[in-house]
C-alpha cells in the first residue's frame, strides 16, 4: 500500500485575493466608505442583485437596513430601479459583478441612467482577472464595453485608499459612474506615496529617467513593485496612476509620455478597449509619434484556475512585467 500523498493542487476560488503575503490590507473598504459617506449624505442608498455579501454591500445593508434595497438576481431591475431612485433625488450605489453590469444589463444603465445623466453609481465586483472562475465571471472587457457610453464616469481604483476616497467623490459628482470594485481584504498601497484620489485626475506616484508606466487598477500596485524590482537592474522607472479611465486625464499622461522614455501601460483588462487604447487614442490625437507597449490581458477568453497561476500565464505578475521591460530595453 502506497503512503505517498498526491501533490496538493492549486485550486481556483471565486473570490481570490491578489494581496501579497503579509501585505497591509483593509477589510471591505467599499462597504465602510459607503457607510461613512451615507452618514454625511442622507440621500445615499444602496442596492444589489443578490450579491451584497460578495460586493461588500452587506456592510452598508447592516448599517442602514432601511436605506438598502435587495433587488434579487435581476440586473435589469437593479439598474432600472437605481435610475428610478435617482429620479426621486436619491443617490444610489448599485452593486453586482462586473460581468453582469457590463454584459447583461447595459441597455438599462445606458438609457435609464446615462441618457438622463442621473447620479447612479454602479459598483462592479471581480473586474478583469480577479477570479479563477473563467469567462462567466471574468470581466476582462468591462471597460471596453462601458467606454462607449456617453456621460459615464469609469474608475479603476488601485487599492483600499483609492476606493475610500473615490466613493464620496462619486456620490458628490452628478451623472452615472462605474467603479471597478476590489473587495474583501484589499491591499493598502498608495498611503506610502504623496497621493490622494481626485476624480478625473492621473497622478505621478514616482519619477524615473528610463521608463514611464501608465497604470490603473490593481496593476498600479504591480507597477510600483515592478519599478522597485527594475531599480535592481539599474532601470529607473516612473509610475503614473490613472484611476479615472473616463473622462481621461490626457494632459497629465501625455506630459509624461512625451519624452524619450520607454512608455508602458499596465491594466487588469483586455488589451482591447481599456487603458492602453485610451492612452493610445490620446497619443494619436495629440499627434505624438510615440510607441506605447501594453501590459494587458490578451484578446481571448481566459482560462479557469488559481489566480496566481493565471496572472503569471497572462503576464500580470511583477516578474513578467520586469522581463517584458528588460526585453524592450534590449
Amino acid at each position: 500500500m502506497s503512503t505517498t500523498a498526491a501533490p496538493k493542487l492549486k485550486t481556483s476560488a471565486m473570490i481570490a485575493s491578489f494581496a501579497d503575503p503579509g501585505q497591509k490590507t483593509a477589510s471591505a473598504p467599499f462597504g465602510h466608505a459607503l457607510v461613512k459617506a451615507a452618514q454625511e449624505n442622507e440621500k445615499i442608498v444602496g442596492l444589489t442583485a443578490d450579491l451584497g455579501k460578495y460586493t461588500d454591500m452587506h456592510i452598508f445593508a447592516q448599517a442602514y437596513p432601511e436605506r438598502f434595497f435587495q433587488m434579487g438576481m435581476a440586473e435589469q431591475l437593479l439598474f432600472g430601479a437605481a435610475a428610478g431612485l435617482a429620479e426621486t433625488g436619491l443617490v444610489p450605489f448599485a452593486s453586482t459583478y462586473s460581468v453582469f453590469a457590463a454584459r447583461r444589463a447595459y441597455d438599462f444603465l445606458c438609457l435609464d441612467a446615462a441618457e438622463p445623466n442621473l447620479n447612479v453609481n454602479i459598483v462592479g465586483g471581480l473586474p478583469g482577472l480577479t477570479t479563477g472562475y473563467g469567462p462567466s465571471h471574468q470581466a476582462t472587457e468591462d471597460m471596453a464595453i462601458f467606454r462607449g457610453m456617453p456621460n459615464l464616469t469609469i474608475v479603476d481604483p488601485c487599492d483600499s485608499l483609492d476606493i475610500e476616497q473615490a466613493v464620496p467623490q462619486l456620490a458628490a459628482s452628478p451623472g452615472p459612474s462605474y467603479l471597478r470594485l476590489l473587495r474583501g481584504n484589499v491591499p493598502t498601497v498608495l498611503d506610502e506615496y504623496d497621493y490622494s484620489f481626485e476624480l478625473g485626475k492621473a497622478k505621478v506616484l514616482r519619477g524615473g529617467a528610463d521608463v514611464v508606466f501608465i497604470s490603473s487598477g490593481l496593476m498600479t500596485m504591480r507597477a510600483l513593485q515592478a519599478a522597485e524590482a527594475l531599480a535592481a537592474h539599474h532601470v529607473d522607472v516612473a509610475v503614473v496612476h490613472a484611476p479615472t479611465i473616463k473622462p481621461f486625464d490626457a494632459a497629465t499622461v501625455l506630459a509624461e509620455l512625451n519624452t524619450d522614455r520607454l512608455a508602458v501601460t499596465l491594466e487588469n483588462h483586455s488589451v482591447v478597449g481599456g487603458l492602453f487604447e485610451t492612452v493610445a487614442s490620446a497619443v494619436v490625437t495629440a499627434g505624438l509619434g510615440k510607441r506605447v507597449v501594453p501590459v494587458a490581458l490578451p484578446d481571448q477568453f481566459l482560462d479557469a484556475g488559481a489566480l496566481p497561476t493565471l496572472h503569471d500565464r497572462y503576464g500580470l505578475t511583477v516578474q513578467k512585467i520586469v522581463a517584458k521591460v528588460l526585453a524592450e530595453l534590449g
Partner: protein
Amino acid sequence: MTTTEEAHMTRTEETMANTSTQRVASVSAAAYRIRHHALTMGEVQGQGYVGQALGAADMLAAVYADQLRFRADDPEWAERDRFLLSTGHYAIGHYAALAEAGVIPVEELDTYGSDDSRLPMSGMSTYTPGMEISGGSLGHGLSIAVGIALGLRHQGSAARVYNFLSDGELDEGSTWEAAMGAHHHQLGNLTAMVDINALQADGKTDTVLRTEPVTEKWEAFGWYTQRVDGNDMAALLTAFDNAAAQAALTGRPSVILCDTKVGRGVPLLEDREKAHFMRIEEHEWQTCREQLTAGYEERTSS
C-alpha cells in the same frame, strides 16, 4: 395639515366618487380631444403610431383628466404623481394628453417629430416637460417605476406611480423582473396599466410570442389584477377607483389590463389591416377627423 395628509384626504374623496355620467362624459370628452390631437400630429408626419394613440386615448384621458395629481404649470412639482410612458412610440398619444392637460401648448403639437422639436417621435425625458422617463427600449418602464415608487416611499411621499406599458412589452423578461420586485417590496403606490391591443411590430401578439393568459400571469406575480375594456370609459374609471381604493405606501401593486382596439374612434382605421406603423394617405386625414367627430357626436347626443 401637511401635504401628505391632504393627499390622503384627496384619495379618500376620490374613492368615494362614483363613475357618474357627468364624470364619464367629461373624461370621454378629453379622450376625444386627445384623439383629434393625435390625428393632427399624425398628419404632420403622414404616417406613424396614430393607431396606437387612438386605441390608448381613453387610458391616457383617464390618467390625465381624472387620476393623476399634477400641476400643469409646474411639471417638476415634487408631490406630483408620476406617469411613466414605457412605450416610447406612444409618445404621440402622450403628447396629445399633455396638451389636453395643459402641460404643453396645443400649437406645439404641430412640431411633432420635426428637427429641434421638444416632441420627438419616441418619448424622451430630456426633451419634453411632463415626460418622466425615456422609454422606447421596451421593458424599461416598470423597472424604473419600481425605483421611483421605492424612492418616493422612502422619502415619505404619498405620490403614486403609474406605468403605461404595452402587451408587447410582456415579451421582455425585464418586465417580469420588475413585476417580482414590485411585489417583493410591496409597492402599493405603484399601478401598471397594460395596453393590450394584441398587436406588435411583426404582427398579432399571439403569432409573435403568446403572452396569454395575461391576467393569470399578473395574479401569479402577486399583483392586484383587473382586466377591462380599455375603450369603455366607465369601466376604466371603475378600475382606477378600485386600484386607488387599495393603494397604500405598503401593499400589493396593482395592474389594470386594458383590452383596446387599434385606431379606436375612426372606423376607417379600425377596419384597416392592423399595422404597428400605420400608413394613412394624404386625402384620408380629413375623413379620419370627420369620422372621429361624427362618432363622438352620435354617442354624446344619444
